[in-house]
């Protein structure tokens, strides 16, 4: 029982950065923009978030630094793809390459430093409940934020007018433009939100997951978040399922490595990546009735005046 509780706790921790980053990307893609730079924004968010927390001693400041860093990088992306009508795939790759370099540069002085990780919630009485106490009432703030975020985004996309307009931009930018909606401005906000989430997700890693910074510590999580959006068919509810599923795969393979089941550790480490490929294939295959992706996803929009 102790082991199961430990596993569930670590699954929640491993899933949270995926969920936060994927939530941001979901909104971005729903507005019709494919930002492949999630990995780059995350890794810079990790470096800046750690730096902020290291210098001020505050996890909140660290998280804010991550958010700001992610948003700034997203702004560069928006300037390129929305302002200059550059191919979104290529720009996203450029953002990732730049982000990996920048995080190395920013984080060079942070290697070897340690911070006090984000505190976990403690509600007297509730947290001490057997079995579910720590799982429900003993998480760090990021876990709760991620869940509020995804519920909020679901409500925004499906229950508000603004959300409807955002989805309209993603499905048919010409119609949205013809109706008088500022497509590019809406997409700009969506891209910035995506960047903020990616930055926060990156910051989670050194602030709560492991209390130190290592270069390249996102290890492809940004790409997995991108795959999760596809897995979720661009729907918030399925995103939660997907993120926790991937968190489970990550943690179970770690436990399997620890238990020494005789399979080389590298094969176990490859599991989350292989699982991503397999899941993408299965999901794409199951979708026989046409794609569920936003119809205008990844296409360039230059309003005619």
């Amino acid at each position, binding site marked *: 029982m102790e082991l199961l509780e430990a596993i569930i706790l670590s699954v929640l921790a491993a899933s949270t950065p995926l969920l936060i980053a994927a939530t941001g990307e979901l909104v971005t893609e729903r507005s019709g923009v494919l930002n492949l730079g999630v990995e780059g924004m995350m890794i810079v968010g990790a470096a800046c978030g750690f730096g902020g927390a290291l210098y001020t001693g505050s996890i909140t400041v660290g998280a804010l630094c991550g958010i700001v860093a992610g948003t700034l990088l997203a702004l560069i992306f928006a300037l390129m793809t929305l302002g*200059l009508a550059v191919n979104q795939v290529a*720009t996203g790759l450029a953002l990732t390459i730049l982000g990996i370099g920048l995080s*190395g540069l920013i984080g060079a002085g942070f290697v070897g430093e340690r911070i006090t990780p984000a505190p976990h919630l403690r509600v007297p009485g509730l947290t001490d409940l057997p079995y579910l106490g720590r799982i429900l009432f003993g998480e760090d703030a990021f876990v709760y934020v991620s869940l509020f975020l995804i519920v909020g985004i679901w409500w925004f996309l499906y229950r508000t007018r603004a959300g409807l307009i955002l989805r309209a931009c993603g499905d048919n930018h010409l119609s949205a433009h013809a109706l008088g909606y500022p497509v590019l401005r809406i997409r700009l906000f969506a891209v910035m939100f995506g960047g903020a989430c990616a930055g926060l997700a990156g910051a989670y890693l050194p602030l709560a997951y492991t209390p130190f910074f290592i270069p390249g510590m996102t290890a492809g999580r940004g790409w997995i978040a*991108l795959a999760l959006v596809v897995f979720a068919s661009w729907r918030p509810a399925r995103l939660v399922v997907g993120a926790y599923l991937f968190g489970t795969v990550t943690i179970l393979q770690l436990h399997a490595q620890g238990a020494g089941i005789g399979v080389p550790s*590298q094969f176990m480490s490859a599991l989350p990546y292989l699982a*991503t490929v397999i899941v993408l294939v299965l999901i794409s*295959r199951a979708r026989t009735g046409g794609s569920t992706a936003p119809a205008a996803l990844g296409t360039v929009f230059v309003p005619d005046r």
Partner: protein
Amino acid sequence: MRLVLEKRTERSNTIALVSPLIAIGLTIVTMSIMFVILGKNPILALGVYFIDPLTDAYSLQEIAVKATPLVMIAIGLSFCYLANVWNIGAEGQFLVGAVAGSWLAVKTQGTDAGYWVMPAMLLLGAAAGALYALIPALCRVRFGASEILTSLMLVYVADLFLDYLVRGPWRDPKGFNFPTTAEFDPVATVPILIEGGRLHMGFVIMLIVVAAASVLLGRTIKGFEIRVVGAAPRAARFGGFNAKQLVVLTFAASGALAGLAGIIEVAGPVGHLQPGISPGYGFTAIIVAFLGRLNPIGILVAGFFLALTFIGGEQAQIAMKIPLDVTKVFQGILLFYVLASDSMITYRFRLIVPPRKVSRGAA
């Protein structure tokens, strides 16, 4: 008053020609600012980066050695990108090619195998790279899975697989527990071109690849098909071109070239299989492909330029203690500027001055 983007009626050939130079110029300006922020003298730093490596024979050879894999991978990627197919997993195909070729080198080690070993290794490397690239290609055409994500995921898998091999079954028993295979036998290495130098046969192979790609893209129906499918998919469908087949073909070709580059790197400059054989060649090659405007000759030039940044970056680290990551930042910024300048080929800015409001009686 505001600035808006509008489509040009015709592509601007002038800008198409100078856009890479504009991009490089803007990158150098940005870099100078960054050097100042880092507290380094920008003139000195730029000199170490871009001029010093060109002044001695050793560095010049080293640039050519680094350009070899970059150009070879980028040529393959340009096929994909021209056809609007997104292979971003060249790094993985490079590693798998290196592994497959090394298998033969490891198996024939210490035997009296003849001079057939090295050519066979190159073939194995290319074949394995192509097969590995076929995984995302087939997932795309069969199941509709995004080739961008699957090809990228397979990079991590290849990296871990290589790591397993050199720490496990292929580890050099006399290697003091370092994760590496034993040095390859002479028959399993790519020969050096100039005695005592670093330049190897792979460089010649790379030049042949560039020439072949020029002919393929410029003079054959397949090359035409690739460009039409990418530029005008609807027209290509009416023309009866098989877009799915092209996804498979371009992926296989780029995988083969990346795999070939991988085994040449291992059997040439490195001499044994170990983790970290690539400082991200597969990703830098994406920049090379775009900087070279997806044109074989352009890619050749761009490959040398990016190789220069690798060597310059190493020298700047030694001479001025400038962190190696500056090179990656530099490469990322360069790609941004390349893409932005390229956008000016088909678009232009226009300043719109709103007409003065004239008050009229009734509208």
